[in-house]
Every structure is written in structure tokens, then in C-alpha cells.
């Protein structure tokens, strides 16, 4: 008999059994490895794959990189990060201008773009600078604290007159000796490598300061003290100071340097030698009654 109500469908057979396929699917779903793949593996794969697909386009990569740099730029160029002034402390006027010249930056500049270490190296490469520290201070100020080298001696080297500091480091060139008459004078090749030694000698030679012209490095090995009237004190390579002390003692006792002696040779400390001028030699021989055949 056909039911009158069309919506009253005949009841499906009262069979609770799952179909073969739904049973298999259920069993598959209960398999732990399959479950892991579906619940963890597949979503993560999808995310990775879609991201990879999205970023594989070169234009998009470029756009994202551009956007990134733009945002970075805009943050870096905020006024809070800009450096507007440079202050140099502890430098003389000439050095000040030299530093400003070598400084590789054009202010104002963002503090992110400053390479303080490179700037420090740059400034330190100037001869007159002994030590420098560079930092960015509050208020957009680039603070450079400089410690200058103090010239201690004048050296006549292969390139002309130069000022050296106490360690022998070049400070600057010098036009004439008379520009710095207050500094002692050294000469000779390799003298700049032994400036502390020279300074020690010059200090020892204080009693004859008014007569001393300078010290000369001989063969990068030993020193000569040059006095006026073309007198020279030739010092040994070792224990030069003590040898000089001996000469000075001799001078105190016998007024040696006032005599007509050209060289005082103490290179061999056991046998100090004097070289007299030719007139004095002749006079002495005459006194002693020695006839010397003069070859000339």
C-alpha cells in the first residue's frame, strides 16, 4: 500500500552494519601512523607548500625585500636616530681639521649607518693621534675624544725633518729646525727606532747641554753625541749611558771638552781614545821633540 504522505519515506532497513568501505575507512583512521600523517603531516605540508609556492615568485620576493628595506629605512631615519653634529675634543686646530677631512661621513646621518669602529681606525691612522674613542652621544652628537701625540725630538730622516714622540712614532713633518728649537735633535738612519735611548742620553748629557747639537745614530747600532766646534763623543753600542757618564766625569775633572780634541772615542770602554786636531797634534809633537816626516 502506498503511503499517503509523500514525505513518509519507507524506513531503510534496520541494519546497523557499516558498509565495507566505511569499515575500512574507520580502520584506516584508527591506524596511528595514518592518523599522524593526516593530523600533523598534511597540515604542515600544506602550510609549507603554500608558503613556498607564494614565495617562489621572484617579483613577490623582490616586493617583500623592498618593503622590508623601506620599513627599516623609515625607522632608521627617524630624527631620534639621526647624528647631526660632530664634536672633537683634545685635538689641536690642525689635527681637528685633519680629522674632519679624513672622517668618511657626511652629517646628518642615521646612527645605524655609522660604523664607529671603522671611524676609529680611520682617525687612529693619522700620525698625530695617539688614542681616540668615537661614540654617539645623546642629542645626535658624534663625540670624538682624541689624545694627541706630543713631539719629543726632531729627527732628520731620509725624508727631511720630522717630529717624533717619545716612542719614536712620527708626529708630523717640520719645515725648519728653528721652528722647534726647544726639542732635542737626533739624526741618522734608524734613529727613530731608538728614540727612548736617545732621550735618555740627552738627559744624561744635561751638563753639556749648551754645547750639544744633537745625537747621531751610527749604523743603527750606536750613538755619537755631536757638540759644537766639531767635537764628537763616540759611544759604544752597549752601556752608552755609563760611557757618557765617564766622559762627563773626565770633562769635570780635566775639562776635556774645552781642549783641542775632535773625537772622544769610548767605543771600547776599556780603551778610551782621543783624537786631537792636527794643530794640536803638531804642537804636542813639537813639545816632545819628535820629528815627523810630513808626507804632504
Amino acid at each position, binding site marked *: 500500500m502506498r503511503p499517503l504522505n509523500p514525505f513518509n519515506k519507507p524506513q531503510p532497513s534496520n541494519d*546497523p*552494519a*557499516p558498509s*565495507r568501505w566505511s*569499515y575500512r575507512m*574507520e580502520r584506516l583512521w*584508527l591506524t596511528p601512523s595514518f592518523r599522524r600523517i593526516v593530523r600533523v603531516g598534511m597540515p604542515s605540508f600544506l602550510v609549507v607548500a603554500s608558503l613556498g609556492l607564494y614565495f617562489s615568485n621572484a617579483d613577490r620576493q623582490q616586493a617583500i625585500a623592498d618593503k622590508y628595506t623601506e620599513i627599516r629605512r623609515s625607522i632608521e631615519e627617524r630624527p631620534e636616530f639621526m647624528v647631526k653634529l660632530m664634536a672633537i675634543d683634545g685635538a689641536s686646530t690642525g689635527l681637528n681639521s685633519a680629522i674632519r677631512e679624513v672622517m668618511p661621513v657626511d652629517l646628518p646621518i642615521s646612527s645605524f649607518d655609522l660604523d664607529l669602529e671603522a671611524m676609529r681606525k680611520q682617525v687612529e691612522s693619522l700620525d698625530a693621534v695617539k688614542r681616540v674613542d668615537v661614540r654617539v652621544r645623546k642629542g645626535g652628537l658624534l663625540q670624538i675624544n682624541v689624545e694627541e701625540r706630543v713631539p719629543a725630538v726632531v729627527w732628520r730622516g731620509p725624508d727631511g725633518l720630522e717630529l717624533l714622540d717619545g716612542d719614536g712614532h712620527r708626529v708630523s713633518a717640520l719645515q725648519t729646525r728653528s721652528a722647534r728649537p726647544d726639542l732635542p735633535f737626533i739624526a741618522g738612519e734608524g734613529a727613530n727606532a731608538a728614540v727612548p735611548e736617545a732621550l735618555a742620553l740627552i738627559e744624561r748629557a744635561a751638563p753639556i747641554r749648551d754645547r750639544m747639537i744633537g745625537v747621531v745614530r751610527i749604523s743603527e747600532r750606536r750613538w755619537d753625541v755631536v757638540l759644537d766646534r766639531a767635537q764628537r763623543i763616540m759611544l759604544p753600542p752597549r752601556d752608552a749611558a755609563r760611557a757618557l757618564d765617564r766622559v762627563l766625569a773626565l770633562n769635570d775633572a780635566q775639562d776635556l771638552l774645552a781642549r783641542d780634541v775632535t773625537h772622544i772615542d769610548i767605543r771600547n770602554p776599556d780603551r778610551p781614545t782621543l783624537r786631537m786636531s792636527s794643530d794640536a797634534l803638531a804642537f804636542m809633537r813639537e813639545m816632545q821633540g819628535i820629528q815627523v816626516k810630513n808626507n804632504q
Partner: protein
Amino acid sequence: MTDLYQSQRAMRNKRQAAMQRGVIAVLDVGSSKIACLVLRFDGPDSFRDSDGIGSMAGQSSFRVIGAATTRSRGVRFGEIDAMHETERAIRTAVQAAQKMAGVRVDHVIACFAGAKPRSYGLAGSVDLHDGAVTDNCVARVLSSCDVPDYGENREILHAQPVNFAVDHRSGLADPRGQAGNSLSVDMHMLSVDRAPIENLLYCIKRCDLELAGIASSSYAAGISSLVEDEQELGAACIDLGGGSTGISIFIKKHMIYADTVRMGGDHVTSDISQGLQVPMPTAERIKTFYGGVQATGMDDRDMIDLSSDTGDWEHDRRTVSRAEVIGVMRPRMEEILEEVRVRLDAAGFEHLPSQRIVLTGGASQLPGLDGLASRILGQQVRLGRPLRVQGLPQSVTGPGFASAVGTCLFAAHPQDEWWDFDIPVEGYPARSLKRAVKWFKDNW
């Protein structure tokens, strides 16, 4: 027989694999319901020795994590009658149990009631060469049993060594290491029809499952509902199922006899249906709500409505008294129990020292059955329920699940069967040596 030996061995290996994986399903294919339990084996570490709980009867080493029951379809007398119907019912039960357990099961141990089981007592005896019993000797004595002609199209379901005797000392459970001159064994062999087993195998295979063991449901009901001393001293377990009634006799913790009566609760229902002219579902309902076997005066006044929907006023408004229902049910129950009595007598149950009889199975819930049974079977009758196992839901603890729970115990702690021992390779070296000598003689 070797075929079966191999296939039973293969099932043992599958069971081992399932134990390794830790999950196995138990399937009770009955005539009225199909039950599926999913077991998880915890391994031996779940109990510490200091707890004082050992593995008692195997129930501590596994846990039931999924249980499902469905109405059985296509099964009659405990045998598969309509394959696809049964397959669908198995699928329903397995899927629901899997869902409850949350794991997928691949291996299943099945039990079924039908297939006309027949018991045989086998005896074998061998001489001991080196004076002591070794594993090899046990295997030899098992294979020395002369197997009776159990018939074409029959398979061996169980073949359990029941008793060992060394010389004249009998009653040994484990003879290994004993000294003596001869070893003899008594073996209990249960054969069933081949066709129902093959049908069951086919159905289980269609459900993408692998059969890891198979048990007779009367055996399973016996190991779950007989308590330990009953199994030890001797008892019979009567599993009153829907389509068939299983009988198993235990002594010394071994089953020595099993049989089925091809009658059960479904026949009672059909009697009510025929006698009162009501449909089967109504008859089932009347049986479960008002059924009984012992009528009292009160039952004459207890009227039951037989409401139906045929349109015939007289037919739809019949009533029947409870005494009439009992009058329909009682002869059938008596018939079943008398048939059981006949089988027990045939097995020689009256010669056992203990005459304990345990009724279990779904039909044993009939009120007053124990009184009726004690009148027919003997005085020592009790109603049995299956052993409690860990994790078993309340709904499947009733006597109807005795064989399902028994199969769980069977899965966890199977008894030694004949195929657990390797076939001895006796005589092989001697024969090959003889053959070599013969070859030399023939050629030189």
C-alpha cells in the same frame, strides 16, 4: 592432520605477533549475539612483585579496552548460515569495539559454539632412550598417539595433553626432567566440522582481520565460569546459549570432554511465538520479562498483554497469564536439560569424583532454572558467571558473555596444545645413513 598442524601453528605465530603489538580482539560468534572485546596486553611489568598481586589466572596481564555487542544475524545453531549477514554483524561489532578502544585491531581470536564437536580420548606411549624426559620426548609421545578416524570433512579444534605418566606414575602435569623408562600421555582431541570453520574464516577475512586462534565456545565458557577448585576437582559447565547448548567437563584443570546440544534459548522463544501466536520479538520480550520455569499460584493471576497491531480487535487485545507462558517454556527447558543429561551420561560424568554442574550462558538467567536443573542434572548445580577481568564493562559481565570472557583468558594464557611442540625429527639421520650405505653398495 599435518595441514591442520601447520595452520594451527601459523595461528599461534599470529597470536605471538599480536601479543607483540599488544592489541588483540576476541570475537564470540553466537547464535543470538556477536560480542567483540578488544584486549590490550600490558606486558609483565605492570605489576611489581612487591604489590603481592601476581598474574592470577591471567587476568592481570591484559585489560579489556573495547567491548561491543550486536544482535547476531545469519547464525543458527552456532554455525554461520548466511555469510554476508554474519560478516556485516561481525563488522558492526568489531567497528564499535575498535571505536571504543581507539585502536585498530588486526588479529582476532574467535570462538563459536556449533559445528558438532566430538571428543576423543587419545593415548600414546614411547620408550625413553636416555632415562629422562626431555622436550623432544614430550613431542614424540604426543605424535605417537594413534589418531582415530575422526571422519572426512572434520578438523581438529583442540588437542590438549591432559595427563602424562612416566612408567607407572600417573597424573603428571609436566613430566619434563622426570626419570623413567617409558612416557605415556592421555590426550583430549576435539574435532569439529570443517565447513563452519571455513565459513568463519571467510567471514573474518572479509572483515580485513587475521584469525590468530580459534576456540570452542563450550571450552571457553568452562575456563571462564568454573572457579579454580571446580576445574581442579572436576565439574561440568553447561553453556546455555541462544542456538546451542555447550557442555564441557573439566578435571585437573583440563577439559576432558566437550559436546553441544543443538537447542537453546532461541527454541524457547520460537515455542512461545508458536504457542501464543505472537511475533518473535514479542515472544523474546515476553521470555525475558516474564519467563520462568516454576509456576506458582500467583502466576495464574499475573496477566500479560499480547498487544499487536493487526487491526483485528479480538486478536490485538489478547492476554495470557504468566503460568501459561511458563507452561510453554518449561517443557523445552526440560528437554534441553534432559538432552544434556544424556550427553553427560554418555561421557561418563557420573564416574567423576565431583558432580558439580555450573550453568552459564544467556539462557541460564531464566528464573528458577537452577531448581529445574538440580532436579534433572543432580543436586550440585549452581549458576555461574564469568570471571571478572580487568576493564570489562558492566554490561558484558553477565553469564551470556561467559564464552567471550573465556576466549580472553584463552588468548592470554592458552593451554599447551599438541601443535605447541615441534614434530620430532626422529630417525631421519639413520634413514639417510642407510640410504647412503645402500647407494655405496649399489655402485661398488
